[in-house]
């Protein structure tokens, strides 16, 4: 690693020779020179190498070629340049793509390989990758390398890049319950995620405030639980569109159905699901978390998650499990009786564990893996060894780094979100704080570090809807994206500032 560091620092010094070096996130290995080639928008094309496992007809790449063509040169048609008779030896008229492993119709997964190498020199203009997902990352990098002179000529510098992500799970959470986000907002976000090499869209679909997911097994959930069942919902078609749109950009859709807390909106459409709260000996008319003592609850969950399992193809589901408020359970005499019967005493964490364990059994029976918020681990719920624990609390019960140490010490995989709550805004360049975090700076052995599979930037929706989502997300989430993709030694905030400022302007374009 020391050698790599030295090389990198040398590169950083010369990186701003031309506009070409404004890459985001910064690649693992890059060598670039001032020598550059012209690119003619008229004749330039993306081509499959004859030995590529992916060939014309590969939807992921065919569509990506079209997208990046438009991004690079706009949708306009370019005139053939006047023939001057003079041969442009320094012109690049194509980028040749070679994908080693076949597979264009699958979905990206946690295990997807995103490595690629990009070679632009006198002899070739060549993108080599193990999979189509790597090719997508390489195309993005290629598009960031192309620059334009004030006269309008397109150029690319002689460059050699070998790149791969530091972490396999690089996520962004959107919350469509506190405020509904129109479909186009989600799709636009997926576009920008791809520009930042994010690869997981964590979709916090439902919560206390509303239930916009249109369930076909329990249509009342949406009819009664959404803000407006005609306009503020995601139909099955919408969900399919999001998943496919994400797939074409190498992005997984990790759906979250958070229980047993954060479920007020569920209660409107499914009577008997939530715990009735009591004041004294009388029901108060308000409801708490999902009622964990009834068989009907688990029958409902069984059916509901069967549907979720079929709608969301990713291997993982997010089951939530955060912030369960015990006050309502405590107030309810039936719950109290159940606690006594089970021998839980006054420890409501055991009741929570009971619920979560039953739910996890249901979901794992469908052959799914799951992600849960850290409370599930903190409350010592027995979970399968391959459970992924997402750390979101900054200080409590312990600092997030300590929490990562504890989770990985127990042998679980971990995702970090605690320092990356983008909904929390403050005056000034707070992206620097997000950028400075190093997810592996906790005490633990290399096996423990290997269990940190990545992180997520979270944009909770209490104060966010489509009016302010974009400027609140970008470029702040970009800081997290680079932290999760680039080498650990890429930490210079000044160098980052220059590239990020440039990248922001590119996003606007």
């Amino acid at each position, binding site marked *: 690693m020391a050698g790599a560091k030295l090389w990198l620092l040398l590169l950083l010094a010369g990186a701003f020779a031309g506009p070409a070096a404004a890459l985001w996130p910064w690649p693992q290995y890059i060598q670039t020179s001032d020598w550059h080639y012209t690119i003619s928008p008229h004749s330039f094309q993306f081509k499959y190498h004859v030995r590529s496992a992916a060939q014309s007809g590969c939807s992921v790449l065919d569509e990506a070629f079209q997208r990046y063509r438009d991004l690079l040169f706009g949708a306009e048609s370019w005139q053939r340049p006047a023939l001057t008779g003079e041969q442009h030896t320094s012109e690049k008229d194509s980028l040749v793509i070679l994908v080693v492993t076949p597979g264009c119709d699958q979905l990206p997964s946690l295990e997807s390989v995103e490595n690629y190498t990009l070679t632009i020199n006198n002899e070739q203009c060549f993108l080599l990758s193990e999979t189509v997902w790597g090719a997508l990352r390489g195309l993005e990098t290629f598009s960031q390398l192309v620059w334009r002179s004030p006269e309008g000529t397109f150029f690319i510098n002689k460059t050699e890049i070998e790149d791969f992500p530091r972490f396999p799970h690089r996520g962004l959470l959107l919350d469509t319950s506190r*405020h*509904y986000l129109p479909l186009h907002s989600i799709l636009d976000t997926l576009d920008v995620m791809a520009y930042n090499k994010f690869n997981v869209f964590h979709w916090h679909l439902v919560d206390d*405030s509303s239930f916009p997911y249109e369930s076909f097994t329990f249509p009342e959930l949406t009819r009664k639980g959404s803000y407006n069942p005609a306009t*503020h919902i995601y139909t099955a078609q919408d969900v399919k569109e999001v998943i496919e749109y994400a797939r074409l950009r190498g992005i997984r859709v990790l759906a979250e159905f958070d229980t047993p807390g954060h479920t007020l909106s569920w209660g409107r459409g499914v009577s008997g699901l939530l715990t009735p709260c009591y004041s004294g000996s009388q029901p108060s008319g308000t409801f708490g978390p999902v009622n964990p003592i009834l068989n009907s609850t688990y029958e409902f969950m069984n059916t509901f998650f069967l549907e979720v399992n079929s709608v969301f193809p990713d291997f993982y589901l997010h089951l939530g499990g955060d912030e369960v408020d015990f006050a309502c359970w405590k107030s309810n005499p039936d719950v109290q009786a159940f606690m006594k019967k089970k021998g839980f005493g006054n420890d409501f964490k055991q009741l929570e564990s009971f619920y979560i364990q039953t739910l996890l059994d249901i979901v794992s029976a469908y052959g799914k893996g799951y992600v849960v918020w850290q409370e599930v681990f903190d409350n010592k719920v027995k979970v399968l060894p391959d459970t992924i624990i997402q750390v979101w609390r900054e200080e409590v019960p312990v600092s997030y780094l300590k929490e990562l140490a504890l989770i990985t010490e127990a042998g679980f995989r971990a995702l970090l979100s605690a320092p990356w709550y983008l909904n929390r805004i403050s005056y000034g360049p707070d992206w620097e704080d997000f950028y400075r975090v190093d997810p592996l700076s906790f005490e633990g052995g290399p096996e423990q570090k290997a269990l940190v599979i990545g992180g997520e930037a979270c944009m909770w929706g209490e*104060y966010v809807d489509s009016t*302010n989502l974009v*400027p609140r997300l970008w470029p702040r989430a970009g800081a997290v994206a680079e932290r999760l993709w680039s080498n650990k030694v890429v930490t210079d905030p000044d160098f980052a500032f220059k590239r990020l400022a440039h990248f922001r302007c590119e996003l606007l374009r």
Partner: protein
Amino acid sequence: MEPRALRPPRLPGLLAALALLLAAQGPRASAARGPALWPLPLSVQTAPRVLHLSPDAFHIANDPLSQAGASCTLLQEAFRRYQNYIFGGPVLKHLPAKSRVKADVQQLLVSVVLDSECEMYPSITSDESYSLVVKEPVAFLKANRVWGVLRGLETFSQLVYQDTYGTYTVNESTITDSPRFPHRGILIDTARHFLPVKSILKTLDAMAFNKFNVLHWHIVDDQSFPYQSTTFPELSNKGSYSKSHVYTPNEVRSVIEYARLRGIRIIPEFDSPGHTQSWGKGQENLLTPCYGGHQPEISGPINPTLNTTYSFLCKLFKEISWVFPDQFIHLGGDEVEFECWESNPNIQKFMKQKGFGTDFRQLESFYMQKLLNIISTLKKGSIVWQEVFDNHVKLQQGTVVQVWKEEMYTNDLSAVTAAGFPVILSAPWYLDRISYGQDWRIYYAVEPLDFSGTQEQKKLVLGGEACLWGEYVDSTNLSPRLWPRASAIGERLWSGKEVRSLDDAYKRLTAHRCRMVRRGIAAEPLFTGYCDNVLK
């Protein structure tokens, strides 16, 4: 300054009435049902009786008795705008359409009582009062001047709501209204980031929805000089971010006219002697060369010791005085760094010669006084940031002081008004400073007259301004950062002192922000919830 109208304490009853109206909608009703007035008028009497309106059987027109006729394009344009705002709501398809809505209110007749001022520019003394009577079959809006009509049209448009069937509905009501403060401003900063004209016009639209009447245009600063001067074209040629990041004379004129049509004044700020780095690029020898540093090229504030400085300022401000029709020009005068002046031997000599000793505030005062004199010979009034007052510059009577320093701003208000100067408050309303949560509540809770001083002193408070400085703001985030946070200040400056209930404000503001979204303003949410409509 116009004396402010006395307000009888009628408001508690009104609040109760509004609360009942809102409560009657039920807990799951969207915020858009029922009228939500923002800012709350002086007096509202609303009857339970509801009247219906139909888009094809309603129009706004001049009353035959009005002093303003069809030739008053300001009103004609406003009528058309408000027709669209009133009926621009979503078509609620999922609910059974009522068969043919009977149009109870078919007309809003508008009458200007005194000379209309239709062709004039609004000013600090413009009369914005109006009264509104909504009844069957004709509603009446009456005002002394066109400015009051504009405010009244906005109020009328806010009274109309869609019931659960999507029918446009209005309650029988009587409203009389006038602003508490005559100066209700928004500051935008087009120097730290350039704002396209489109963004400025959008901001003017939203200002009108909130009854703001002053756009304080902080047009140039250290970072860039986007104002294209006809006298000194090099200022923007060399001082703007790029050739396309400028405001041409035509664009400035169109901003001023767009604002006038909405009853909004444009007050330009050309801040000096500090905050002028960008001026130096296009005007040689204007800035003070700094000495002693390792970088000889550094310059500081405007050089106050040269005659050429003042002849330049004279010409520049002469141009500004006729480009911008408002009676006032903002001269800045904030945050002057003395280090550079201190380092310069010629300035030191000048100080000695003038007998200023080492008190550079006296030098600053010397500069400001000369500048203020230039402005008064141009027959304009001046507004300055509070440092000019704090540093004891001799100010002419009527010079307006803007208080921006947050620590102890109430003391500053006392001091400025005790010295007899009119004052504008901004200190608690720096909207560029963002934080997590509902900071609008903090802006709303401010009471501008809550400082120690006599009645005479309180009368010197002209109003306030919400300031959105541009270090972290450009057209990508301007609207959601400004709205609805600035709306809280809009109501504080328009409505009665007693209108302070945060709960009631929350309900009305939630609905008001959805209304702004419906009218095309990307106003951000106050908290969890939804609007019937999404931003187009």
